[in-house]
Structures are given as structure tokens and as C-alpha cells.
């Protein structure tokens, strides 16, 4: 059983999964590593670690700046893999998922899957790699049992959804809104309807992300899904140099969804 399968096996109607997103190297290599440790100890179930990219097209202003801060520190892919290794040394169970853009993953060429495996990475989310373009990438990752987490959006229709589900693993990430990270989430009922629809078609867990910034929204979103992803709000703390508050915020999220 993979680490992701194990963690989702623990979910129940009352216990939901908390996924956090931070950018590797933001605000520095050392601090971002410390933040990841804090996230785990305060209740994060899955760590999504952003791979900083020069052109983060799907990100709102807050996460864009996080990418820029990390790049200013000259963070390279090998540094990110090192962070993963260090986390893995201390913690053998928390799933690690790298989230980024295709060009970053391409830079590792055919060594990608092996390197990810050696670093203890469990899954990959590639924002600009839709299902249609992902066949060989997916197969390469699967050789090392690494999951390619699919993003499903409000505009994904049923026909396409069924095709995607046929080659999905790990979990599914439902993007709650049409827009960029950190945008305003308005239509709860629509999200609920769509998540229910996805769940009726698959046994894979479905987490909801984009626009979840407070415990109230987190609770609501978790009520009909398997978990939630929070990114922008955590990075807000980093931007405002109040990383110390991340732990208590994470604890409050965890409490809200369980």
C-alpha cells in the first residue's frame, strides 16, 4: 500500500484530510523546511510542495510572489529533492506531493521518476499538463509507483472525466473555481454537486482546493469531500513575516474538518 493509500484509508465521515501547499525555498531553503516540519506537527496530512517556476501561470498574486521569493534564493530542483529527503528521514508516513509546471519536471529528463522515488516523493501535480498530453509522462511515473494527481475543474465534462479517471491514481484534486489560486470562492452548491458527481464515478479520494482561506469554508468543503487543500492563506503568513502563526492556523483547520 502506498503512503497516499494509507492516509486516505483513515478517512471517514468525520475525519477528513488536510493538504497544505507551500513553495519550496520560500522565504529561504532553511525556513521553508522548518515550515514543512511545523505543518506536519500541527496536523497536515499531505504536503504539497510547490516547485518554484519563473512563469507560474495559474497562480494568484500571493503564490506568484512566493515563487519569485524562492527563485531569488536560487532554489534548484536538487534542493527541493533534498528537502523531501530530509522530511522522509524523520517521517516515513507523511505523503509528499510535488506541484509545479511542466518545464520544471522536464528539466530532469528521463531521470525524473527515479529521482522522485529516491527522494521519497509520492505524487506529482503538473498544473499545465492536462490529461490529453500526459500519457507518456504518466507511464514513466508509474514505473516508480509515483502517482500523477489529476486536476479536475468546473469545466471538465462527464465524458472527459470518465476518460481521465481511467488513468488516475493517488487522489483527485478538484479545482473549486474557474480562476487562479487564492481567488474568491462563491458557489458552494456547485462545488458540492460536482464533487458528488466525481465520487459517484470513482473510488479514488477527492480533495477540494482553490479559494479555501478560513476554517468555516474548510469545514463546509470537507463535509462533502475527502479533504481540502489550503495554500494561499498559509503563504500569506510567510509573506507577512508571521510564519509563527502557521501552526495555530493549521491546527484550527484540522479541528474544523474533523
Amino acid at each position, binding site marked *: 500500500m502506498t503512503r497516499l493509500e494509507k492516509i486516505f484509508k483513515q478517512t471517514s465521515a468525520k475525519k477528513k484530510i488536510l493538504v497544505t501547499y507551500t513553495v519550496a525555498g520560500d522565504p529561504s531553503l532553511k525556513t521553508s523546511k522548518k515550515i514543512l516540519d511545523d505543518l506536519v506537527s500541527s496536523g497536515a496530512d499531505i504536503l504539497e510542495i510547490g516547485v518554484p*517556476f519563473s512563469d507560474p501561470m495559474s497562480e494568484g498574486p500571493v503564490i506568484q510572489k512566493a515563487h519569485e521569493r524562492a527563485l531569488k534564493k536560487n532554489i534548484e530542483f536538487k534542493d527541493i529533492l533534498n528537502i523531501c529527503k530530509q522530511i522522509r528521514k524523520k517521517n516515513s508516513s507523511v505523503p509528499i506531493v510535488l506541484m509545479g509546471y*511542466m518545464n520544471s519536471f522536464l528539466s530532469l529528463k528521463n531521470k525524473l521518476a527515479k529521482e522522485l522515488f529516491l527522494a521519497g516523493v509520492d505524487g506529482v501535480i503538473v498544473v499545465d499538463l492536462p490529461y490529453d498530453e500526459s500519457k507518456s509522462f504518466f507511464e514513466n511515473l508509474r514505473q516508480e509507483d509515483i502517482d500523477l494527481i489529476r486536476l479536475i475543474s468546473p469545466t471538465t465534462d462527464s465524458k472527459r472525466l470518465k476518460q481521465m479517471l481511467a488513468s488516475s491514481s493517488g487522489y483527485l484534486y478538484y479545482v473549486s473555481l474557474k480562476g487562479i489560486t487564492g481567488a474568491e470562492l462563491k458557489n458552494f452548491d456547485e462545488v458540492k454537486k460536482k464533487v458528488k458527481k466525481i465520487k459517484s464515478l470513482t473510488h479514488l479520494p477527492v480533495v477540494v482546493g482553490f479559494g479555501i482561506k478560513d476554517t468555516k469554508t474548510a469545514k463546509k468543503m470537507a463535509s462533502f469531500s475527502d479533504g481540502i487543500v489550503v495554500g494561499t492563506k498559509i503563504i500569506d503568513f510567510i509573506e507577512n513575516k508571521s510564519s509563527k502563526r502557521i501552526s495555530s492556523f493549521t491546527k484550527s483547520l484540522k479541528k474544523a474538518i474533523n
Partner: protein
Amino acid sequence: MKSKSKINYTFPDENGRFGEFGGKYVSETLITALEELEKIYSKVKNDKSFQEEVIKDLNDFVGRPSPLYFAERWTEKLGGAKIYLKREDLNHTGAHKINNTVGQVLLAKKMGKKRVIAETGAGQHGVATATVAARHGLECIVFMGEEDIERQSLNVYRMKLLGAKVCSVDSGTKTLKDAMNEAMRDWVTNVEDTHYIIGSVAGPHPYPEIVRDFNSIVGKELKLQSKKEFGKYPDMIVACVGGGSNAMGIFYPFIKDIKTKLVGVEAGGSGVKSGKHAAPLSDGKVGVLHGMKTYLMQDKNGQILPTHSVSAGLDYPGVGPEHAYLRDIGRVEYQSATDQQALKSFHELTRTEGIMPALETSHALAYVNKIAPKLSKSKIIVINLSGRGDKDMFTVAKEDGMTL
């Protein structure tokens, strides 16, 4: 045995690819919009009434066909091949960019979109989009890098006069690529009522095909004009390449006719060896950006590198995927010209022919300046004179040490 004068060429394929290049590398949310665009485009591509509507606008609104002009004094001066200019600078709004926007705005209307967005570098595509939006009464937002807003202030004001909202982009390198990122962000947010009018043969499928097709009126006209003028096709066609829309427009109808040599000229900035340039075909690696797989200027970690060019319109780290393919199969030769060579040619054409070219176009002129004297007088070179240089007055004056 008679040598082959034609090759087969049918790209993009059904996956939106030119060989390994192209594709649709976008977030899931945009896939539906791209599929809708693909569907509507494949329908109207061969629809006579739609094509007639486009042609009518190209004739009556843009002022086509654009003349093929013999640059006699410049030819004499260089003392080699005969040089002709395909006068896209004479189009309404002053560049080839309007050929594409005239077509895409009609696609937007077909899809029932009320709002159009665009990215712009030099401002020519922004102006061309604002112009067709004004004509059709659509809301128009143009994204432009902060640095470009500064060096192309005339075009910024033109867009505003036309009723467009110009959004300054201050992320990343504050130029064309960042404007494109921001346009993508807007599109993903407003995908239902908005059509993104991409201005180059770049971006995800089907944009490289659509923008090429709308611009290929240039090459089609040239075929007729050159047959009439010299009884044959040109021996060489030269065009500047940033994203590559003017080049694709003039090259495409000639791709199968291999007797015509095709040359694309990239922005060499301070020189390709200096690293300060915008020439991914000369000095880039294959990667994925803005929805396409193509040659990119990037470092070993896949980070996109800052580009440098005196011309805002060529200041882009990628290039249309079809150019990447044409480079690899050797059908088009890609060269580069430096800022200084382009500026020199800008002045030369202005003084010799009384035609003030855009700085982008000046890169193509710089290559011809080098190659024409080496060719025999019986050879014919056609340059796509893609735009006029009025917008570049401030930049040229600054380079010459003057303030206006």
C-alpha cells in the same frame, strides 16, 4: 532526373502538433475553451461565407492587398539580388497584426463572446485587437508588461483612445511573456464570456494554426504578385521572428515550394554569444511554456531566462512551435541580427527608400543587408515589411542619444 520541387506538408496533426512541437499544455479549466475554439474553427475554415466575411474586412477595413514594392535604390546600393518589400506596414494600424485580429474577432462573435483579451509586446497586437473590438463593440482588455508600456507609450495611448483597458503587468521580467501569463490568468477566470486573441503563432493548439492561417493572406498575395511581377516565385523570402506570426504568414503558402528559400531572423540583442538576446531557435532548448512545446531560452532547471532585444515585439523567450519544427526539418533557415545591426538597417531603409520600418522588421532587413550583395542580380529577395516604425521613435531617439 528532375529534382523535386514540392514536398508534402500537413501540419498541425490531429493532436495539434508539428512533429514533437506544439500541443495543448494548459490547465484543465482551459481545455473546454480550446476545444470549443477548435470546433468552431474547423467549421468556419472551409465555410465560404465566413471566409468571404474575412476577405471583405481585409480588403475594406485593412486595405489589402498590400503592395509588393521594388526597393530600387537599396538594391542598387547593395549591388546584388533584387530586393522587394511586402508592404504590411501600409495596413490599417500599421502592421501585419491586424490580419489575425480581423479574423479572430469574427470567431469570438461566432462563439458569442462579449469580451476579448490580448497580450502585447510592442503594442501593435494590442492596437490591432483594440481596433477590431471597437469596430464590433466588444469589451477589450490588453495586458502589457510595465517595461513595454514605458517604451511603447504611443501605442498605449492609441489603445486607450480605442476604448481598450490597458493592464500593466509588473510580475517577472515585466515584458511580453509576463503579459501572456497575465492574459492566461484572466482567461482562466473569465473563460465563459471571454475570447483570448493570441497575437502570435504561439500558445496552445489551435492558436498556432489559426494565427498562421489568418496571416497567410500575406504569402498568398505574394504568390500572385510575384508570378505577375517576375513570372516566378521569389528565390528567397526573409522575415523577422519573435513569436513568428508575420514569418509564418508569408512562409506558409511557400513551404511546399522548396525552390524558394525561407529565412527567419531572430533578435540577436547584444549578440547570440553574449547570452543577452531573444533567439531561442539559435540558442535555446526544447521545453514547455504558454501551452506549447517549443524551443525556449531557459536554464538547466527549466527556468525561463530574461530576454533582451531593442524591439519589444521580438522580446520573447519562446517561438511558435511550427518554427521549431521547420527549423528541425531544415525547411527554414534561422539567422539572427543584433540590436546594432537592426538599428543601422532601420536608418538605411528610412534614408534610402523613404520607408521607416518597425525595429522588429529591421532585423530582417539587417540579414538582407548582409546576404543581398553576395547573390547575383538575377535573384529576387522578398522581405516581409511587417510593420511601420512610428511607434519606435522614442527608442530610436534614445539609442541616438536624443530626447524627444
